């Protein structure tokens, strides 16, 4: 069988090319300039082996389909995030997949590139432990639009997550969204003109610090929702962030939980326990600088805890707030209080300690099943409670911090 033999020989050559184990990690460089650049980029992400770096050359990729990475310990490194000089993954013509880049492997390092105008989410990582998002830009370049994708940077169901020096603009849900994860740091990042700037949802142990959340509908959200595999969000510290001018009208599709976030919200804590909000600089948040609420929708999840508990607010700077409260009845309350409501708003459910020297308004709705129309707004003094012991702060594995040094 001469030609069968030949074919077999060709196959064996191919085996040798792909089965050889790497002596050292290698760099796979991909150029945006070739006609088959998209396929070559996806191919590189598939053929990379643990330890390898996929290097994105400078230029613009016009991508029609989502990219994905499923190999552990791979670095994806671009030449920068700026138009004209960086590595730009442009999804304006996307025809398929729910996100621009999907990562499903551990120890991945994403750095120094931009993801633009995806139809769904920007970059999603699922069950991807020890992932590092670093110096990335995820943007919907036309600014806030209901047709923009939901999440910019979206790690979910992961342990050890670092988001560092990321810029996200225009997400129709949350710019930076960490869901159902554990041991998380979001720092030195900028979230602007999203519905929610930064959102920590159904997650345990997170530090959100030194970020700028500006011109979103709501700046920083700490949420817990029912009927999900991981719930009972707790131990979240939101500190030393700049949270100002969150004034973008809510552009989320109705039904989504963030569609209920009032325009002009600084930090919003819902149905979590042990959340510390301290050392932040707040200004120009028309509804409230800090809002603490229960989950007030119908739900029948016996394992779900809808109340905020052990929330601590201290040592924050409060600029102007409460001058345009964008919730039902807010304008009337503001008018009755001389034009503005206090910078800290509590719906009256659960418990919180507020040590900031600004007034607190309670809606006096301790039972989350009571409709908001029955609110009895009145100033509240939450400074008398005993704050729980301070949270220890998050430490990530050294291997992760080393990547961004």
């Amino acid at each position, binding site marked *: 069988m001469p030609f*069968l033999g030949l074919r077999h020989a060709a196959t064996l050559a191919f085996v040798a090319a792909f089965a050889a184990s790497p002596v050292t990690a290698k760099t796979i460089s991909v150029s945006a300039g070739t006609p088959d650049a998209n396929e070559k980029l996806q191919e590189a992400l598939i053929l990379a082996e643990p330890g390898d770096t996929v290097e994105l050359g400078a230029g613009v990729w016009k991508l029609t389909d989502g990219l994905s990475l499923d190999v552990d310990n791979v670095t994806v490194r671009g030449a920068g995030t700026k138009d004209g000089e960086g590595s730009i993954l442009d999804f304006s013509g996307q025809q398929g997949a729910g996100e621009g880049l999907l990562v499903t492997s551990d120890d991945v390092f994403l750095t120094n590139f931009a993801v633009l105008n995806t139809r769904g989410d920007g970059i999603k990582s699922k069950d991807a432990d020890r992932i590092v998002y670093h110096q990335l830009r995820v943007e919907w370049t036309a600014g806030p639009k209901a047709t923009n994708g939901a999440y910019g940077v979206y790690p979910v169901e992961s342990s050890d997550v670092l988001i560092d020096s990321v810029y996200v603009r225009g997400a129709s849900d949350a710019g930076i969204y960490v869901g159902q994860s554990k041991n998380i740091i979001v720092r030195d990042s900028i979230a602007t003109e999203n519905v929610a700037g930064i959102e920590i949802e159904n997650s345990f142990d997170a530090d959100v610090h030194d970020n700028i959340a500006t011109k979103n509908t709501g700046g920083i959200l700490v949420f817990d929702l029912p*009927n999900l595999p991981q719930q009972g969000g707790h131990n979240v510290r939101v500190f030393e962030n700049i949270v100002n001018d969150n004034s973008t009208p809510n552009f989320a599709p109705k039904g989504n939980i963030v569609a209920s976030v009032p325009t002009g919200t600084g930090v919003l804590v819902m149905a979590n326990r042990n959340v510390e909000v301290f050392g932040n600089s707040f200004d120009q948040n028309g509804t409230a600088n800090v809002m603490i609420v229960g989950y007030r929708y119908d739900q029948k999840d016996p394992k779900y805890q809808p109340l905020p508990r052990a929330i601590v607010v201290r040592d924050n700077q409060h600029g102007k707030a409460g001058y345009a409260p964008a919730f039902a009845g807010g304008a009337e309350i503001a008018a009755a209080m001389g034009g503005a409501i206090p910078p800290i708003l509590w719906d009256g459910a659960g418990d919180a300690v507020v040590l900031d020297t600004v007034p607190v308004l309670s809606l006096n709705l301790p039972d989350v099943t009571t409709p908001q129309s029955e609110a009895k707004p009145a100033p509240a003094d939450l400074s008398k409670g005993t704050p729980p012991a301070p949270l220890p702060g998050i430490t990530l594995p050294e291997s992760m911090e080393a990547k961004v040094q």
Partner: protein
Amino acid sequence: MKRAVAALAAALLLASGASGGAPPRVDQALIDGDAMPPKLSAFGLFAANDPARPVASFAYTLNTPLFSDYAEKHRFISIPAGTKAHVREDGTIDFPVGTVIVKSFGWPDRDGGRPVETRLLIHRATGWTALPYIWDADGQDASLAIAGRRVPVTFKSPDGEAHSIRYAVPNKNQCKECHNLAGVIEPIGPNARNLVLPAAMTGDATRLYFDNPEALKPVLPRWDDPKSGTVQERARAYLDVNCSHCHNPQGSASNSGLFLRWTDPVGVNYGIGKRPTAAGRGSGGMDFAIKPGDPDHSFLIYRLESLDPGIAMPELGRGVVHKEGVALLRQWIAEMPKEGG
């Protein structure tokens, strides 16, 4: 010269056993190794590389198949000689190492029904590997497309409507997105509750490939055959096959909390009264995935009727709306009693 070529060809056919001698055999060593050969023919899964002549242990169908842009699929399995599959308690099938599951996709009215692509799921010692092959323009062989590709195709759906789409052949990772169970690749289709063996394959023939063939009980109704089940049963079969490979607690959509397996309880986690979690634009401005009695306000329907990548479900493998499938789900939701169902 012409005659010499013909004679040589005849000799080759004889040598490869295509006329008379030993039946064609798959290249088991290649299957068992870790190569990703650039040409499908290397595996020997088709006699004379003819997609109509599979070298199979057996062909199979499914009671309710996954919708893939109205593609007609031809499926077969090659199990290494002397080994047997075992049906597990939960209905999944433990295929021996060396098994290849082969699925070819084409349309009856396109190119004489010749396949556009053939996907392999190979059980190697290291686990299952998914390899997508696209048939070459001359139809003589298929080439590995590890990064996937969009292929323009034109066909008519059963209602007579003409479709011209850029059909998406999945890349290797996308294969895994659907076949992912707790991080590893698993077969989906061949499952005891859905697998249908050829009518001629009975008793001993089945026992040749399964050590407990009595456990093969295709209980799933045919989604499009009212005689095979109630509307609810057929809707649930449809959701199981089209959605639950991701929408289960160990699947790619585990974080959604929406679980659509045949065995899942029909409650909040089945979508009934379930609010959007990370649906984004997929909610379409609606409050619930399924609102009993009201398919027009059930965003599960909205997502199945959309072609926008930020909205459409399933996320992969669908470039047209499956009108007949959606009609069944609409009927199911419409018939649910309102107020909690």
